[in-house]
């Protein structure tokens, strides 16, 4: 190594993800045909599944850059997403993200365009993802099932890892409150036609307890390890092979103490999560106009949770989710006015759980799908995208998802865009196959839609059913949940310093799957199953503004206004069939203006960021605000209204500062939640005030020509 000439590189401050964007020979010649391709400008792939300049994409895409992730001191994906406009992080079954007012179930989370699996009660825990090797995060809001299929109903979050071909070694160590240690190591090496990179992250925390004197931790002690490899081989000027391999491991330790009549019972719990992803991709350029990509993807998520209570049997809960996909995508560039992309794929998916009957058997579903999209520029100022996707599912009804989007560049500084699309979410395995009886809590049962009739009929035959409810007779094949989303907006940038975005969205959701009481056990315990029942809408306004006051000083602010409703509840209120309580606790009619809509949603959300940055120093102040949100049905009428229980509005203030001491050494300090805002019941994942220090080193070797 001594003979090599090192070139020190200031990655963390200056590696604007675009400037270092790696373009393969295949990509370059392909894009040579996209006239005036400006490499300095940010590009996005998620909106159209092809690389586009951000300013040219008809479907608005939000980018979170590597720089802003680093400068916010983020460690996990949840850390950085909570600071974005219009994203509301939920707690319960991990940290999920609510987009355009829709639950975490309806946002597709991808790494390099491939979906992550392993959801608990519909939530994919965003803490599973380390952000130390992310080049950028692309966020597309509004239904995107026309390209991505199930789950892309509220939108898509695509994490793009840094695969810049160079020779470097970068490491950082962060230490903070609650004995939180976060270590990152990025190694990249390229020689000839090969590039190789490795990312290692280890995150360890003692967790914290915001409940005084409690044995159990609000956030339990945890150790997370992520290993990610990427190899690429430029086989020829026209063919490139990429292989991504990721392995993530999590171990959470829980100690629970239950006091009953002064007797304390201690339990020890362990949770293990293992996440494995393998993604080989071959890209071939048949001509300068025709590009084809073959992607293979295999992922396996394993969760094991056990609880050992002294004197009791061990409670063990297991889930294994496997997902294998083969997909081919072909992009054809006809001319400056018309381009096409089309794809075909096959998915085999399976889940094994001891909450299903016959826990040794894997429940499987196969999906065949096809998608096609065309982008047309009839005139210079107008771009139109028309696309659809058809998913043929083995287990439940097929889904057809069309989308139309348009962008009109009125002037160089003002753009309008509009889109209408359909998104869906397939019923998940839990909703189909669950066979779970909670013996610890009264013996109630939940049966998946494909199990319920069979199980209840069986129980009835052996005289174990007390009564059958009317919803039992409504049980049938589950259909996907659908949303029709309309988005329109404008983007205005009068000059280089000011950028203003305004958008309006509305999602009409049909067929929402809900749990319903279908029968009673002989013991009187309830039996639930899943039915397509509810119809809801979410609508709102989102705006974002950023101003560069001086070359060093910048201010940005974002705001979302959100309204939601369950359409059937609105009908009930309008019909005068919904009551609430007066001050004495007795009933009175509820008015429509008292209706809140869906719970756990803030009507107003805002964020504000002030930042200063020069050649070797930066500092920032970030404020996140959420208005109150409904959490409990205090008046007992079964819907959420102004007489119910709310979590208080809150503001969280974070600050960070960093300094580049030499070309290879950098330090950062920060404080999150300066105001020490704590809401134990409603924000269990929000620790009080925390401090941290990060030290980063980077060694770079210039590529030999």
């Amino acid at each position, binding site marked *: 190594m001594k003979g090599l000439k090192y070139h020190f590189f200031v990655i963390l401050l200056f590696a604007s993800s675009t400037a270092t964007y790696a373009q393969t020979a295949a990509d370059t010649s392909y894009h040579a045909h996209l006239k005036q391709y400006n490499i300095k400008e940010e590009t996005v792939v998620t909106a159209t599944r092809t690389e586009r300049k951000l300013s040219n994409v008809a479907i608005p895409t939000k980018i979170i850059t590597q720089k802003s992730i680093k400068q916010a001191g983020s460690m996990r994906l949840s850390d950085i997403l909570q600071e974005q406009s219009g994203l509301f992080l939920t707690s319960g079954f991990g940290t999920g993200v609510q987009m355009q007012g829709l639950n975490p179930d309806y946002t597709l989370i991808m790494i390099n365009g491939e979906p992550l699996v392993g959801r608990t009660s519909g939530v994919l825990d965003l803490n599973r993802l380390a952000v130390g090797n992310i080049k950028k995060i692309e966020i597309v809001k509004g239904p995107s099932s026309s390209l991505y299929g199930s789950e892309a109903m509220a939108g898509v979050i695509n994490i793009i890892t840094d695969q810049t071909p160079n020779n470097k070694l970068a490491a950082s160590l962060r230490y903070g409150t609650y004995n939180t240690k976060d270590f990152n190591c990025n190694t990249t090496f390229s020689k000839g036609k090969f590039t190789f990179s490795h990312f290692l992250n280890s995150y360890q925390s003692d967790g914290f307890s915001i409940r005084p004197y409690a044995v159990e931790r609000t956030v339990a002690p945890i150790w997370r390890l992520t290993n990610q490899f990427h190899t690429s081989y430029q086989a020829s000027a026209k063919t490139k092979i990429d292989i991504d391999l990721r392995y993530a491991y999590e171990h959470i330790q829980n100690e629970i103490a239950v006091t*009953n*009549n002064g007797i304390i019972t201690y339990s020890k719990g362990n949770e293990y999560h293992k996440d494995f992803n393998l993604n080989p991709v071959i890209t071939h350029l048949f001509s300068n106009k025709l590009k084809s990509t073959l992607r293979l993807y295999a992922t396996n998520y394993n969760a094991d949770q056990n609880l050992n209570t002294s004197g009791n049997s061990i409670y063990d809960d297991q889930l294994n989710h496997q997902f294998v996909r083969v997909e081919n995508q072909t992009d054809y560039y006809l001319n400056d006015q018309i381009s096409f992309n089309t794809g075909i794929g096959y998915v085999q998916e399976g889940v094994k759980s001891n909450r299903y009957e016959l826990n040794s058997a894997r429940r499987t579903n196969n999906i065949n799908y096809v998608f096609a999209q065309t982008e047309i520029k009839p005139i210079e100022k107008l771009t139109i995208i028309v696309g659809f996707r058809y998913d043929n599912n083995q287990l439940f009804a097929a889904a057809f998802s069309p989308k139309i989007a348009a962008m009109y560049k009125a002037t160089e500084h003002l753009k309008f865009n509009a889109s209408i699309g359909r998104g869906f979410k397939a019923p998940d395995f839990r909703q189909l196959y669950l066979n779970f009886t909670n013996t610890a*809590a009264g013996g109630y049962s939940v049966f998946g839609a494909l199990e319920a009739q069979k199980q209840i009929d069986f129980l009835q035959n052996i005289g174990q059913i007390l009564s059958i409810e009317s919803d039992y007779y409504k049980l049938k094949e589950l259909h996907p949940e659908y949303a029709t989303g309309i988005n329109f907006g404008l983007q205005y940038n009068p000059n280089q310093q000011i950028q203003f975005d305004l958008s309006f969205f509305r999602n009409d959701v049909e067929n929402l799957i809900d749990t319903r*009481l279908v029968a*009673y056990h002989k013991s*009187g315990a*309830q039996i639930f199953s899943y039915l397509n029942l509810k119809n809801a809408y979410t609508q709102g306004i989102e705006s974002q503004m950023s101003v560069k006051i001086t070359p060093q000083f910048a201010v940005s602010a974002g705001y979302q206004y959100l309204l939601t409703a369950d359409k059937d509840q609105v009908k009930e209120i309008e019909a005068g*069939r*919904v*009551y*609430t*309580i007066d001050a*004495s*606790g*007795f*009933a*009175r*009619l509820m008015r429509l203006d008292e209706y809140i809509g869906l719970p756990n949603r803030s009507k107003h959300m805002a964020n504000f960021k002030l930042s200063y940055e020069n050649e070797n120093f930066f500092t920032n102040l970030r404020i996140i605000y959420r208005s109150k949100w409904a*959490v*409990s*049905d*205090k*008046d*007992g*009428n*079964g819907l959420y209204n102004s007489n119910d*229980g709310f979590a208080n509005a809150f503001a969280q203030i974070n600050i960070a500062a960093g300094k580049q001491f030499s070309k290879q050494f950098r330090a950062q300090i920060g404080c999150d939640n300066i105001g020490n805002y704590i809401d*134990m*019941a409603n924000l269990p994942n929000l620790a009080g005030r925390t401090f941290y220090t990060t030290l980063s080193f980077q060694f770079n070797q210039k590529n030999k020509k």
Partner: protein
Amino acid sequence: MAMAIVASSFYACTDNTKSIIDTSNNGSYKVYTLNDVTEVQNLIADTIIGTSAQGQPVGTGHFTFFSLKNRAMVPLTDSATSNWDVAFRGTTILTNAGTSGPGMGGAYMHVGLFADVISFNADSTIRTDAAPVYAIKTGSNKGWYIYDGPNNLVTPIPGRVLMIRGADSKLYKLEINNYYKGGVTPLTTATSAIKLSTQRYYNFRYKAL
């Protein structure tokens, strides 16, 4: 808890038209009558005294019997008589007929507002108790209350009026407003000790039709 006590004593002091009845062996409940509407507060219904071997909270297992006509509790020894109209134990409510007693009682649940009910046709609507199925259904969202499992709280459903036929076949309308001591439901964040010790206190109003 402090809030609950303040609220109820304030109520008692400011309204001179109301009378207070104390019973020594069943805690103290309060009965007020105003414009033919009788309001009962803190009527205990087998409050929790301990935990079973399985760890479930339990009471003595006895119902609290109440005469709507006499506006007072009826001693336990009169449980097999027609002296009572309704009886409470936990979330279960009995009426004096069928498997529950020798009277001519019964009940049905009306969805609407207390003030709007003027009369009803008892013969076609009233059901009688046939244990374990009661005229007033038990279970969350089945009868008069919902049970919030995660928070362990019982809340009366607003707009549920219990139409009751007394042991002597006199008709009443009855609305329950709270299930906790002092008529104040604990906060969702309250400890389970508070939630257990303050529950099974009936607060309701009724009127003869």
